[in-house]
């Protein structure tokens, strides 16, 4: 029995090590590879906390093992009656005070970072000309998709957040139906999107997304919001300021003119889809029921998680409910012929501001 115990301990230690060595997860969505100041602050706190906790575990397990090994009845004899010790004030004081100190060690940075990461006082700051100093993005979470409005810039997009690197980006978060939670694991912790009030926080993106596996960071909805909660993913593109400005200009230009890759597709779109989807990137949130498609061709996924390809798109359009149960877009499987579908898909894939 004892041997079994020892072996298991060794084995579990090895197992833990392997897991550690197996790495820190994937760059585009792991909290262990923070890609910005907020995430890094939190990661540092994680390291500090883990260190303290590891220490606690080691001390406990050490005492435990010694006691278990030394005081077995099989060694001491069946009839051995141990001394009935009542306790020890000295010892008890020790294991009250040391944990208090450890807790203080953790509590101080906790309070510090709580205030630091919660500080949005500079959000509305303007420079001498009255221009906003910081980029502000209004995020609206909806049943199973995300809308991103840039109020100062007059543009709106969906499913893919585009932000400049190396500056504080401020967020206003709200949900329009049920509660969701906005989380970009690699960049920083989450904040809920409540239905009744706007939550504010900031993030800093320090890494360009184009070097990542898919060219984007992954964003997740972190609050149960219905059947397709698991599929309520979004993506984040980060780029240096000049490129970002270029993207903004291109988005603003979609108000006048879009790429039309397929005339028939455009026609079908204007018949069946325009009621819910805009193809102009200029606008505000909540103008339409569905996501803004002005930059659809630049996306990484369809509806947040499906392959971004013509086939993937057609699959989505054909049966939306199968892929994302409970979402608010009707399926068009029966209504459009294969050829029409094809045209529509080509048109949509052509909606781009980056190419």
């Amino acid at each position, binding site marked *: 029995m004892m041997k079994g115990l020892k072996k298991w301990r060794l084995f579990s230690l090895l197992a833990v090590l392997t897991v550690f060595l197996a790495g820190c997860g994937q760059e585009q969505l792991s909290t262990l590879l923070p890609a910005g100041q907020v995430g890094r602050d939190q990661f540092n706190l994680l390291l500090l906390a883990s260190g303290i906790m590891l220490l606690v575990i080691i001390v406990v397990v050490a005492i435990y093992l010694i006691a278990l090994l030394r005081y077995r009845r099989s060694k001491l004899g069946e009839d051995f009656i141990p001394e009935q010790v009542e306790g020890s004030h000295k010892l008890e004081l020790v294991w009250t005070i040391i944990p208090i100190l450890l807790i203080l060690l953790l509590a101080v940075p906790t309070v510090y970072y709580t205030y630091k990461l919660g500080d949005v006082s500079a959000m509305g700051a303007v420079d001498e000309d009255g221009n906003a100093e910081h980029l502000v993005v209004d995020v609206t979470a909806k049943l199973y998709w995300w809308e991103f409005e840039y109020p100062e810039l007059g543009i709106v997009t969906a499913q893919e957040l585009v932000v400049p690197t190396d500056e504080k980006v401020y967020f206003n978060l709200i949900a329009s139906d049920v509660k969701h939670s906005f989380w970009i694991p690699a960049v920083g912790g989450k904040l809920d999107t409540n239905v009744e009030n706007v939550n504010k926080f900031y993030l800093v993106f320090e890494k360009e997304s184009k070097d990542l596996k898919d060219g984007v960071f992954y964003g997740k909805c972190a609050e149960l919001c219905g059947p397709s909660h698991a599929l309520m993913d979004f993506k984040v593109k980060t780029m240096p300021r000049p490129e970002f400005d270029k993207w903004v200009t291109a988005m603003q230009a979609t108000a006048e003119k879009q790429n039309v890759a397929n005339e028939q597709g455009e026609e079908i779109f204007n018949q069946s889809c325009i009621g819910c989807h805009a193809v102009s990137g200029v606008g505000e949130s909540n103008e339409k029921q569905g996501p803004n498609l002005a930059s659809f061709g630049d996306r990484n996924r369809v509806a947040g998680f499906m392959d971004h390809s013509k086939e993937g798109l057609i699959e989505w359009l054909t049966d939306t409910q199968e892929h994302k149960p*409970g979402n608010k877009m009707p399926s068009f499987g029966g209504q459009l012929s294969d050829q029409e579908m094809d045209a529509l898909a080509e048109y949509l894939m052509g909606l781009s501001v980056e190419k």
Partner: protein
Amino acid sequence: MSSVAQKKSFGATLWDWLTTVDHKKIGILYFLGGGFFFVVGGIEAMMIRWQLYKPNNDFVSAGLYNDLITMHGTTMIFLAAMPILFGFMNAIVPLQIGARDVAFPFINSLGFWMFFFGGLFLNISWIYGEVPDAGWTSYASLSLASEGHGIDFYAIGLQIAGGGTLMAGINFLVTIINMRAPGMTYMRMPLFTWTTFVASAMILFAFPPLTIGLFFLTFDRMFGGNFFDHQMGGNTIIWEHIFWIFGHPEVYILILPAFGIFSEIFSIFSRKRLFGYPSMVFATVLIGFLGFMVWAHHMFTVGLGPTANAIFAVATMAIAVPTGVKIFNWLLTMWGGSITVTTPMLYALGFIPSFVMGGVTGVMQGAAPLDYQLHDSYFIVAHFHYVIVGGVVLAILAATHLYWPKMFGTMLNETLGKVTFWFFFIGFHMTFLIQHWLGFWGMPRRVWTYMGDQGWDLANLISTIGAFFMAIGVIVLVINVIITSVKNVRVANDPWGDGRTLEWAIESPPLYYNFTATPLVRGLDSVWIEKMEGNETGLTPAEPIKDIHMPHGSIIPLLMTLGLFIAGFGAMFHSETNWGLPVLIFGLLWTFVSMAVRSLQDDLGYYIKKEEILRDMKALNKGGQK
């Protein structure tokens, strides 16, 4: 009536169980009812893990998955863990304090039936086909938006079960306050009794908010209330606060009795007095108290603002201190003792490292800015299964082995017990350790499926395999129970040989009036003291043998509950059918009339005559310790 076993017809036996007010029988009922729901919740867990073993699995649909996690969480917490613990409390605590009965036998029985019918009500949703699906926390925006009657089952079912819990809590409190044997001062009470006391006090203060919260939910969904509908000026965050004002104390309601059970085990199987008894008591009370000051740590990401987050973060971490005191006291109880590794002790030994790991991850989550990352990720799932499975469930399994002889008069097989332990323990770490990393790697909880290639595939597979190890462990336990019950080898008063508290000085199972004469308690671990002084029985009577007052059984608790059960369906369907309202009224009237009958009856109980007790004693002595 006599304690000597009589052959009874099946009907009579059934009637006996339905009407019983004997705390030992109610304990068994709680244990069986909770055990049943544990298996139900366990099967739900296995289905969850099966769905997640590989990416893009389609074993269950998205909607069904949400049903599963909601019912798994709700069932395990309200219908499995708590009732099983209540089972042990009922069976053991009155014996530990030298009482013949609980303070309110009738209410005790009512509490059980309300738990059981509440649980049934909740689970009938599976048959009806509309199942609660907003998570066990049922956050308001989603639970209002949820279609069908699923959430109605949740709100009404938990309301009924919760009422039962509150009654059970008050009953334990008064029992411990008023019914202790002479000499059993507060500072001589065994730790399981103490933790029962504090957990019951927490129930008293934590369940009323739940009642109110569920009431709001019921009214919002069924009777035109607007508490949470923000378009009507309501606020969903109120639900979150109320739920966690209840919910956080709830988790300590679960863990404290578990601590109590382990305290008994460490001291019995180390053959040593509990180290630092007074500080153990103090720590228990402190944990109970602090448990009410930290609820917002579940809401760090709600946007309450830095001040609230900072205050609640620090308060949360503070709980580590009294909990640590307990851990070290257990270690020092072992230190210098004479440790024998029986099955219960094996569970206790498994508990220490498991619970410490779960506890320290709790403290990590308490660091608010860090929790912004961890919240609603698999790290949380890992944390709470480490404390719940590694703490509460291990305690339940340990107590099952420890108290089986006291409850059923026969011993579970030790070898099979150890087999169960190893399967369960290994499976448990395998399932949940890896989930910490899943959380770090960005996997949110409550996801029905996940895309491949995000680095989560292998970890999820390992986790699922571990879960099946746990299931094997539980199945071995069930086999063990069946074999043991069939063999039915009777055991003596103190089958473990080192019992220290009063329950080990009387028959296994005890006579229906527990003690022939109320015992006199002369110190902590009174049976141990008596035995060390050469008194082999372990008991010193505090009074001569005399008539004993006992309560009558009653079917009314069952009837009262039935009324509520019926009313629940009426409430649920009152807006869409025209039979709903009459049924609602009928059910409530039914309950009210049963209640009135009860209070008009003047049930004063009956007396067991002295002669009968003497006869029982003689029968026991002549037959010796079979």
